[in-house]
Structure formats: C-alpha cells, structure tokens
C-alpha cells in the first residue's frame, strides 16, 4: 500500500510541476501540428518554417517595441479530433497563446475551429488543411488558411490536361478527404471542358502491391493515369505496378506526389509526366527558396512556405494593432494580408514591422503569394511541373 501511495504522490508532484508555466514576457504563438500520426514526417519542416518567421520577428527588435516571440508546440495527431482539441485548449487556456498556426489536417481543423477557435476568439491559421468542405465550417470568422482549397487545384489541373490535348484519362485517388476531394473537383472541371474519364477508382495507402488496382484501371482503355495520392505511400506503388506491367507510361500528379524522391526512384521512366503544386515561380517564391535554403529548411515538400506565411500573418497582425491581444490580432489579419499597402515578401518581416509601427499599411505577399478572399482562404497559385530528363521542372505558373 505504501509503495502505491508513494507512486501516486510522485505522480502528483510531476503533474503539478509540469502544470506550472514559467512566467516570461515573450509573446506566445501556438503551433498545432500533427507531430505524431500519419503525416509526422511532413510536420517537422513545417514547424521549422513557422519558427523561422517567429525568430525573424524576434530578432528584428521592433516587434511590439522589441518583444520576443516564443513558439509553443502542440500535437494535433492529424486524426484524433478529441486529442487535437485538448491540445488546442491547452495552448489557449494554459499557455495563453495569442493565436494558433495549425492544425495540419482537415478533420482536426474543423473540430478545433468550431470548438476552440470560435468560442475563445482565437485566430487560427492552418497552413495545410486543404479540404474544400472547410470553407463551410462554422468558425465565426476565426479560421483562416494559407493552403488553397483542393477545389481550385483540380480545376487548374483539368485546364492543363485539356490544353495538352489529353481527352481521356483514368483516375486513382488515395481514399481520404484529400484524394477524394481532388478527384471530384478535377472530374467535374475536366468533364465540363470536354474530357472523358474512363475510370475512377480509389486505393488504400500502405499496401505492398498495387497490381490489381492498376489492372482494373488499364482495363478501362485509358493511356494516361491521374494519381491523387502520396509519394511515400500508395502513389509510388501505383506507378511501380504501372511501369512493371506497361499499363501506363504517362502520369498526371498533384502536390502530394511531387518531390525529388519520386524522380530519384523512377528517373527517366517518367519523362513527359506532369502535375501541379502550390506556389509559383514568382518573385515571392524565389525569395522564399533562398531564405529557406540558408536556414536549412528543405523545400522539396509541401506546406513549408504556407507555414511561414501563416505565422508571419499573425505577427504582422499583432504589430498592426500594436497589441498582442487576441481580438486585435483577429481584427487586423485581413488588412495585413490584402492590398492596399507595401508588398512584403518572405524574409522582409522587419521591413513590414517597421512600416506598421509607423502606422503605414502593408500587403503581405510572403512565400506563396498570400491573398485572402472574404472568408479567409487563399486563392492559390500553382506551378505546372513537368518531368524532363528525369527531373521535375517548373514550366508555367497558373
């Protein structure tokens, strides 16, 4: 019994000590991402990009008169809405963060937006939740996103495909809201433009062999396969099985499939395949690439620039209202993101903070050409990536 009591007492002490938060006057921004769970390999660079923006503002020495920013990380798990809301609640009510960057995934975003952001009045900017359905979530205006909705990417891709004269395709998508959403938006746009979809089938991630799926798809008679999937998951398996059996030689991708690991693995076998991914070869993106590289953030994956943007918007909104109060931040997010004002690119936070401190106006462009529509979502620019000589090359911006 005594042992048991000892255990309880020591547990209690640990918890108490853990729950005493250290008082310092740094301003805290919550970073809610799926650090564990299905996208855990994507989140560390996203978090690093977000923290880069924070340290940039801290180091400038002029953020709210020289205040520092501290990031407080929380795990949104990507799938468990209950754990994600508990983590968000901890950030808001215990750590007293002024705003939240995140959550990463669409399902947890909807839960956090309705259960934590709206009731607490906390500005929440997700950098990677792309589900189209999030546009209609009851967030009372507190949920924003710097990653464009999937609905848009499907349209852009359909336009490119028709322009290339490809009139018949088969589609396979990974069976989640990302793949399904894209397949629907692409399908609708493609049909409207006169294309014909010979077959749509879903695939589950994490299987060892996809030859059965590829067999069904090729039986439809299509020569080109559209893959809405993930590079490290089923998408790669589908390509492998297609090349092995000679069913398809040409593929169409979206952001989840574009990365150097794909071309490294398949090389020139994929020549002529193409796809879209967010971001453009604009001045903004070029600048971001330089900054990311010099800070050691790999840019060969999605959502890094958008994470930087989400954080930067919160920082600039705080500066615009000259207060780290949550209401003030919420009031100014739209104003700093959109015109009119001086254009601010990634790496120029100091310039933006200076202008705002003097009472000027800015139009944050950031890493990925941020421009919010009336419900706080970016329109999104996409670059057309083609595989030429075994490497992804950006050929056009849409």
């Amino acid at each position, binding site marked *: 019994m005594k042992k048991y009591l000892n255990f309880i007492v020591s547990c*209690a002490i640990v918890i108490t000590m853990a*729950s005493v938060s250290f008082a310092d006057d740094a301003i805290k921004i919550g970073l809610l991402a799926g650090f564990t769970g299905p996208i855990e390999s994507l989140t560390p660079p996203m978090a690093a990009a977000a923290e880069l923006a924070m340290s940039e503002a801290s180091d400038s020495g002029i953020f709210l008169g020289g205040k520092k920013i501290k990031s407080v990380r929380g795990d949104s798990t990507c799938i468990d809405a209950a754990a994600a809301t508990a983590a968000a609640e*901890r950030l808001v009510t*215990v750590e007293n963060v002024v705003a939240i960057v995140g959550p990463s995934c669409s399902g947890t975003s909807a839960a956090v937006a309705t259960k934590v952001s709206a009731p607490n009045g906390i500005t929440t900017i997700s950098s990677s939740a792309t589900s189209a359905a999030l546009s209609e979530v009851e967030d009372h205006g507190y949920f924003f996103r710097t990653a464009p909705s999937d609905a848009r990417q499907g349209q852009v891709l359909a336009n490119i495909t028709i322009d290339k004269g490809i009139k018949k395709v088969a589609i396979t998508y990974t069976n989640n*809201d990302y793949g399904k959403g894209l397949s629907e938006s692409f399908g609708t746009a493609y049909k409207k433009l006169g294309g014909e979809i010979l077959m749509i089938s879903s695939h589950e991630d994490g299987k060892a062999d996809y030859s059965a799926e590829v067999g069904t798809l090729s039986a439809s008679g299509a020569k080109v396969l559209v893959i809405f999937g993930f590079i490290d998951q089923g998408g790669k398996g589908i390509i492998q099985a297609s090349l092995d059996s000679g069913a398809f030689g040409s593929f169409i991708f979206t952001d989840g499939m574009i990365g150097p690991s794909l071309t490294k693995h398949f090389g020139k076998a994929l020549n002529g395949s193409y796809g879209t991914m967010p971001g453009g070869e604009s001045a903004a993106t070029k600048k971001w690439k330089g900054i990311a590289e010099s800070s050691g953030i790999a840019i060969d994956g999605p959502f890094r620039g958008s994470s930087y943007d989400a954080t930067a918007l919160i920082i600039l909104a705080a500066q615009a209202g000259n207060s780290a109060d949550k209401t003030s931040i919420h009031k100014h997010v739209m104003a700093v993101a959109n015109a009119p004002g001086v254009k601010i690119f990634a790496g120029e936070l100091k310039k933006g903070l200076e202008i705002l401190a003097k009472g000027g106006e800015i139009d944050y462009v950031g890493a990925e050409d941020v421009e919010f529509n009336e419900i706080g979502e970016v329109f999104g620019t996409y670059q057309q990536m083609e595989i030429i000589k075994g490497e992804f090359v950006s050929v056009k911006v849409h």
Partner: protein
Amino acid sequence: MSRYNIRVATSFGTMFFLLLMVGFGQSWSLSLSIVNLCLISAIMALGVNIQWGYAGLFNVGIMGFTALGGLSAVLISKGSIKEAVKAGGMKMLVVILIFSLTIALSIYIYKKFKNKGLVIAILLAGYFITRHFYLDATQTIEAINPAFSGYLGGLELPVLLSWIAGGFLAAGAAWLIGKISLGLRTDYLAIATLGISEIIIAIIKNEDWLSRGVKNVTGIPRPVPYEIDLQQADWFNELVAKLYAGSLDLLPVSEHAAALKAHISDASIVFVKLCYSGLFLSVLLLIIILAGLALNSPWGRMVRAIRDNEMAASAMGKNVKQRHLQIFVIGSAIAGVSGAMLATYNGQFTPGSYIPLRYTFLIWVMVIVGGSGNNLGSVVGGFLIWFLWIEAEPVGFWLADLSTSFLDKENYIRQHLLNNAQYIRLIFMGAVLLVVMRFSPDGILPETNKKL
C-alpha cells in the same frame, strides 16, 4: 474498510485529485475536456469489459462499433439534403426494397424447400438487380453538390436520440457478426472481429451517399448550447456578472467591461463542457448500475461460469452459444452508444480517423490496466489512460526540458529532445501498461468475486 475498498477509494481519489490539479494548475476548460473524454472512454471500456471481463470474448473490433455509433449521429441529427432526397431518395428506397425482398425470399425458400441451388440463384439474381438500381441511385445522389453535400443527409431529429440509435445500430451489426463468427474460439474470434471492423470502416469510407465517406461530415448539431450564443445571451451575462461581482469590484471601473467579457467567454466554455459532462456522467452511471446488476444476478454468474469453464457450463445444460451472442450484442451496443457520444461531442464524423490503435487497442489498454472483470476498474482505466494520453504531452516537454536543462540552449541533443517530446505519449502508454502488469497483474482494481 477492506483492502479492496481502500484501493477503490484511493484510485478514484487520485483520479479526482489529478483532474483538480489540472483545473487549478492549468485550466478548468482543459480539465473538463479531459473529463468528458474520460467519461466517453470509460463507457467504451465498459463495453469491452462486459465482453472480455464477463464472458471472455476477445473482441478486437471495437473500432467498427464505435464508428457505427458515429454514423448514427450523422444519420439521426443532420438536416436532410432536399435536392438529393428529391433526386435519389425514391431510387434508394427501391434499392433497399429490392435488397430486403431478395433476403426475405431466399430465407423463405431455404426454410420451405431446403433447396440450396434455388436460394443461390435468387441471391445472384437479387444481387444483379439491386446493383443495377443501386449504382444509378448512388450516382444521382453523389452528383449533387459533391464538395459540400453529396449525400442524403439525416433525419433532423435531436442528436441525443442518436445515442440510443447508435446502440441499436451497433447491436444489430453485432448480432449479424456474432451469428457468423461466435462459433470461433478466442484467437480466431479476435482475427474475425479485427477483420470485420475494418470491413465496416471500409464500407463507411466508400459509401458517400450515406455519410459523405472520407469527405467527412462536420457540424453535427449539439444537445447543449453554443458558446457564442451563450456569450450573447442576457441571462448568462447577468449570471456571470453576479458570480464575479466580488472580483470585478476590486478592479478600476475602466477595466470592468474587458474583464467581464473575458470572464463571460471563459464561463461560456466551461458551462458548455459541464453540460456535456452531466449528460455523459448520467449515461455512464446508468450503464454501470445496469452492468453491476447484471453481473451479480444469476445470469452474471452463469456467464462467468461459462467464461471459466465452457465445457462444464455446457454440461450443466447452459446454452453457451446463446449467452455468448447476448454478451457480444450488449457489449457492442455500449461501444456504439459511446461512439455516438464521441461524434456528438466532436461535432463531426471523420471515417478516416478510425484507426485500430486509437479505437481498439487504446480501449483494450484501459480495460487491462483498470482490471478486466471489474466495472469500476474499467472506469478507472478509462480515466487514467485518457488522462495520460493528453497530459503526456506537457509532461513530456517538461521532462525533456528538465533533463537537458544543464545543456546549452542550442545544444543538438536538447533541441532534438524538445522537438520530439510529443512521442513520449506512446512511450508513456507502454510504460504504464508494463508497470501495472508488473505490480498488479490483475489491473488496478482486480475482479472481486472471482470465485462463484
């Protein structure tokens, strides 16, 4: 007080104390959100305990039943999509009619003529006819505004009804599954239930006309008020003003309005959570009382006798198969109720998030750690494991911070540990399971009346 009673008192006391500590040390809103999930987890654990603890049925398909509960929350409470119902409602009705007709006819033929060939022919014909109409119906429904609806919607009834409906839906599925697979013994049953739960998830994920599949349903109506409405309600504002009158008086008049606003916002969140806690607690108490009564009745003794020695019980003339089916249905129904409660609390149904780690094995850890065969044990297990599941993260940060505090701020090891503190959650779970199994192999609260 007996040794056992002391154990019960200390474990519940500790849990209560820990949650109070979170309330005082961190925040009441966090503490209550942990409590609410603890209550739901406790109900799930009770469902497993009834199957495993009472009757020794090794069901690793809890996930499927909780998902069915969540599905019922959507089907009962969401508003119906008028266009979709208009376009495809009748078609779907025809499909269901043909399908049930096929099943009914084949059962009738089988019973009347015992002609297997004829039955197979009817089933095959039925399948093709159903499929023909079904494809047309689903395509019609799914084509209507796929990004935001694309399904039939629900019945627009109060969401609380779905807790009962979820129980019935899960019970129905369990009856069907039980009929097929309960003849199997322990490990075979485990494999069968694991597979079947994945089948249920696969169906829900792919039947978009039913609940939008992987595109998720958000905005399930609440049985309790919305925080935003409370913040604007006069009665609530007056109540909060009255409650905080003392502390407000201490502030200068200029800060009154802002302070009151902050109090109202906090209070509205706590109020909503308390409403949920009340609902969940009443369901938990109801189930505990019923389960306790059942366990201590002649029926409960019979079930445990079957668990401990199936042969002997069977030789005494007890209908083992029938009891197993009963237990399987009851336990799964409770899992279904808790699934509906969870979907209601989260306000959304996301089929992609049902993974065995979270909805089957975590629940099993709760039962094992709490003490299988003991209802109170399952409740304690549910509370403790969920508490650690959430609090492991801040504790992990704190541990990583403390253990490397002597290192330089930019030190690689320190940075690495701090950046990966989230993973301690999984280590914690393993450690707790090992520690409890080592020092109390029967769980925190072992089964009391093991001997009949």
